[in-house]
């Protein structure tokens, strides 16, 4: 090995460690700051606060509702994208990814332009008696908008990864396409779908920008935990820290649980299992 390349090796290794440590600190220290600010007694006291419970329940209700809606609407789209070629597929793919990268405030504004009282569908909605801005339903819509891409992406990858030979085998047994999907593709892709559900839920739980822009900020109807944290930052930092801690812990438990089950969205690909053909 030449002198120059051994310097490179040593420098590269040290550099990698230093930069990785820097990133670790960048992500870990803010969380440590929150954890260290909250005392256990303050945590219990906050959990007894009616307003805190109210926003926690609202967050749980809306994020679970958003996850269910995302599942119902997201799985068919994931199946189409995984199994079909059609004109404009690229555009649909971009559309499905877009909410992950556009600023949530922009998403909220766009939702107002479409579903608000003065929006594209405003007249039809008010004729049907549907109101979304300033309502809990509006919170769910904002959360679905922001979090459904995680579900579609994960489920699609799972569907696409199913080896064709299992489907072919089902077809030789005269299984129809839909039957084959339900009994072969969906079960084999289930880990990916569950990972998608987890990420979708976590994202919905943390949604802030689209919610406050589209649904407003009102205790009991639209003030979810992230909005409550934002409000508390302006009056009571200790309460803000406590609620932040609750959100961080919920998200961390969710992610750790999924990883434990080998279901992380970005978990490294595992060695292919000896996939069992579903029982007939």
């Amino acid at each position, binding site marked *: 090995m030449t002198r120059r*390349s051994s310097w*490179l*090796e040593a*420098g*590269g290794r040290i*550099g*990698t460690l230093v*930069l990785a440590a820097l990133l670790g600190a960048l992500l870990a220290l803010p969380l440590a700051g929150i954890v260290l600010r909250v005392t256990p007694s303050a945590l219990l006291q906050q959990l007894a606060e009616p307003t805190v419970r109210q926003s926690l329940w609202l967050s749980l209700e809306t994020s679970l509702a958003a996850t269910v809606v995302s599942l119902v609407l997201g799985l068919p789209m994931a199946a189409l994208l995984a199994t079909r070629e059609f004109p404009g597929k690229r555009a649909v793919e971009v559309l499905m990814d877009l909410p992950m990268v556009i600023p949530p405030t922009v998403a909220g504004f766009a939702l*107002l332009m479409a579903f*608000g*009282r*003065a929006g594209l569908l405003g007249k039809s909605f008010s004729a049907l008696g549907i109101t979304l*801005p*300033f309502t809990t339903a509006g919170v769910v819509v904002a959360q679905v908008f922001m979090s459904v891409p995680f579900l579609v992406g994960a489920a699609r990858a799972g569907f696409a990864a199913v080896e064709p030979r299992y489907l072919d085998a089902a077809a030789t047994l005269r299984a129809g396409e839909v039957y084959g999907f339900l009994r072969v593709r969906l079960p084999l892709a289930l880990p990916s779908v569950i990972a998608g559900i987890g990420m979708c839920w976590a994202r919905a739980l943390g949604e802030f920008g689209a919610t*406050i822009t589209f649904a*407003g*900020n*009102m*205790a009991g*109807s*639209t003030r979810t935990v992230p909005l409550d944290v*934002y*409000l508390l*930052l*302006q*009056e009571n*930092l200790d309460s803000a820290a406590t609620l932040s801690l609750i959100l961080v812990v919920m998200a961390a438990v969710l992610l750790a649980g999924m990883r434990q089950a080998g279901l992380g969205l970005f978990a490294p690909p595992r060695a292919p299992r000896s996939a069992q053909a579903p029982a007939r």
Partner: protein
Amino acid sequence: MSFRGRHTGLALGLLPALAAMAAPLAAQQSVTVFAAASLTEALTAIGRTFEQRYPGVTVKFNFAGSQVLATQMEQGARADVFASADQRWMKYAEDRKLLAAAPVTFARNRLVLVIPRSNPGGIERLQDLARPGLKLVLAGRQVPVGAYSREALTRLSLADGFPRRFDQLVLSNLVSEEENVRAVAAKVQLREADAGIVYQSDVTESVKPQLRIIPIPDPHNPIAEYSIATIAGGNSLGRGFVALVLSAEGQAVLAARGFLPPGTPTP
């Protein structure tokens, strides 16, 4: 050279660039002004005059609800000047020893009720706000205009021609508490809200075509008091900026945008 080594080298090379971006631009002089959202246009205009007067100096603004600005400064945000829309948050900053000098009142502002020009809620007078089912948007109670708005409703509920508990009836129509006055104006401008309470000066030329104003009579109108102060440890140019705001020239800019002069006696 291995593929991995090359990338590590690239990342290492980026580090000084990142450090340079994080470091303040020492060469250029600047004044950082933290100001209430309602002051956006007026202080931006005064800032331009300031920059013309002091070539090479830039004025940077952070416009937000006064409560946000006060807590940001408390948490260590660097500012040279603070302009608050009420006394409460100026006092908050003063109590935490953030100010370099005593605050000075430099403007006042009247509250007004704004409704979309199409008037979806059918609101013709203040009393209509108590009608059940209306969608009212106010700023949160921590926001200066939110506190003033609630004070106005309380005063109106004691006034002739208004139902007792008027304030409670109106607040039961509240559908959202916004984080600053401009967010309230935007919700009304977008026709999502039937009504909102903002400052007179927030009905700017750009939103005027879409809004209708219903005045709140002066005896019931808690006129907002704006104060300004330099921040401890800040750039000395901050004093010059405060002086310009208080000068006849600065006051003319504020008056042109709908603010009242500081001397106006409150009823």
